[in-house]
């Protein structure tokens, strides 16, 4: 009989631990993220999409603008997935590279600005909740995540320029380096 009781207790304990974790998050992370989401959504609405589109058009020429400034601002302003739409202002040749950089900016900035990619927040939050459990501030981690991302995502976009050239040769096609905007 004792055995069965132990077994049942152990079984319930699985869910109790989960429930404690859940309600802990509901009390700490959820309100914080919600407030940030509201503030960011408002800011984005007030600034407007047109301004960021203008920046995109001017960023085509320079790799630093193209793979660092544009995807960073784009992820902040348009969030995932619409940030990828900014690629339409770039020449065909650079679209894969922009995607490579932008896809990563949708994560590295997510620690501080969760509105960018709330659906995949737990990549950051999963690890950061361990930090929180130790009583250490999550912000330190989030800021370093963003800064390392800023540099390495740029490198990622830039390296993709070369892999694109390589695949071009492999497939024997040439992608245009000229901007072609329709409509």
């Amino acid at each position: 009989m004792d055995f069965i009781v132990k077994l049942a207790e152990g079984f319930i304990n699985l869910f109790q631990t989960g429930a404690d974790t859940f309600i802990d998050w509901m009390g700490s992370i959820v309100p914080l993220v919600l407030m940030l989401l509201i503030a960011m959504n408002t800011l984005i609405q007030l600034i407007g999409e047109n301004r960021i589109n203008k920046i995109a058009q001017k960023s085509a020429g320079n790799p630093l603008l193209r793979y660092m400034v544009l995807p960073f601002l784009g992820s902040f302003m348009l969030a995932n997935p619409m940030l990828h739409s900014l690629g339409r202002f770039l020449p065909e040749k650079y679209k894969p590279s922009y995607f490579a950089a932008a896809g990563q900016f949708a994560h590295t900035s997510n620690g501080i600005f969760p509105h960018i990619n709330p659906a995949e927040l737990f990549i950051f939050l999963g690890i950061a909740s361990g930090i929180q459990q130790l009583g250490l501030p999550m912000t330190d981690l989030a800021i370093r995540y963003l800064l390392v991302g800023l540099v390495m995502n740029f490198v990622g976009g830039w390296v993709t320029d070369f892999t694109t050239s390589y695949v071009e040769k492999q497939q024997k096609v040439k992608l245009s380096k000229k901007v072609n905007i329709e409509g």
Partner: protein
Amino acid sequence: MSKKVKIVKGSGGFGGPLVIGINGKKDKVMYVTGGHKPAIVDKICEITGASAVNGFETSVPEDEIMAAVIDCGGTLRCGIYPQKGIPTINIMATGKSGPLRQYITEEIYVSNVDVDQVSVAGEDEGAEQASETVQQASSEETEKKEKTESEATYSKDKKIMETRAEQENKSLLTKIGLGAGKVINTFYQASRDAVETMLHTVIPFMGFVALLIGIIQGSGIGDLFANIMSPLAGNIWGLMVIGFVCSLPFLSPLLGPGGVIGQVLGTLIGVEIGKGNIPPNLALPALFAINTQNAADFIPVGLGLAEAETKTIEVGVPSVLYSRFLNGVPRVFVAWLASFGLYK
């Protein structure tokens, strides 16, 4: 050979039944499933005579797509094709979720579909067609209804603003009032959007992860994981191995969907950090290590959003996979260098 195919939802799925067939130029079934071809694609093609196209390797003009087959866990793709008006078949059991969830409706989307859910549409095609047109009509109607409704709610609070805004000689007070009204409305709408996102996207995932943590910590599995994870995630070399594996070009598109694998790995490592088995400064390189496959499954769709040509997508997919591979391990290493002094 232009029969119609009927697709119903699987158990726990959402939406449908869809009845689709070749219609003019629309004769292609596009599957965007990280490269492998689900069996239902063959079956749909067999019944309808449509041709299958791997959306991961090439792109198809939107007006030639009869239906899209996806394997989205609920973050993005499940909304993108419905948004474009393309009938969408998800092989996962995802319902209305993700940032584009408002486009996912019963009329255009069906999920958790396997071979058994695909069948030839009823003998009397006429009736089926009729029902389809009825369905379309009804969907149009509901759309219209929604539109008029949203317009109606819009015009309710807009009319006053509009009439005021149309007045030529606005007093300062009116101007302030209009401005404040606009800002407050924006805040309110932003709040509605944010609450929706939390309810439909973040909290469900939180529940899933919390249960996972409960099972890991409450049972003995936690110690087992600690034994496996600590040597792997507890030092920089192990993290680089994780990063390397996740970035392998043939694996990364399969690990990508929904970021679910990355999020589960993150949670596991987080638990170990919380218990003190992994030093906290390694959290930074770990963030990069578990996510070297980032967006690898999403390349064709992302390039599609950038209005890339078919040629660009064909070049872009392998190119980005290669660059993810080249970057993966260095990213982890640089993050490790940047983690010195963190939480010391």
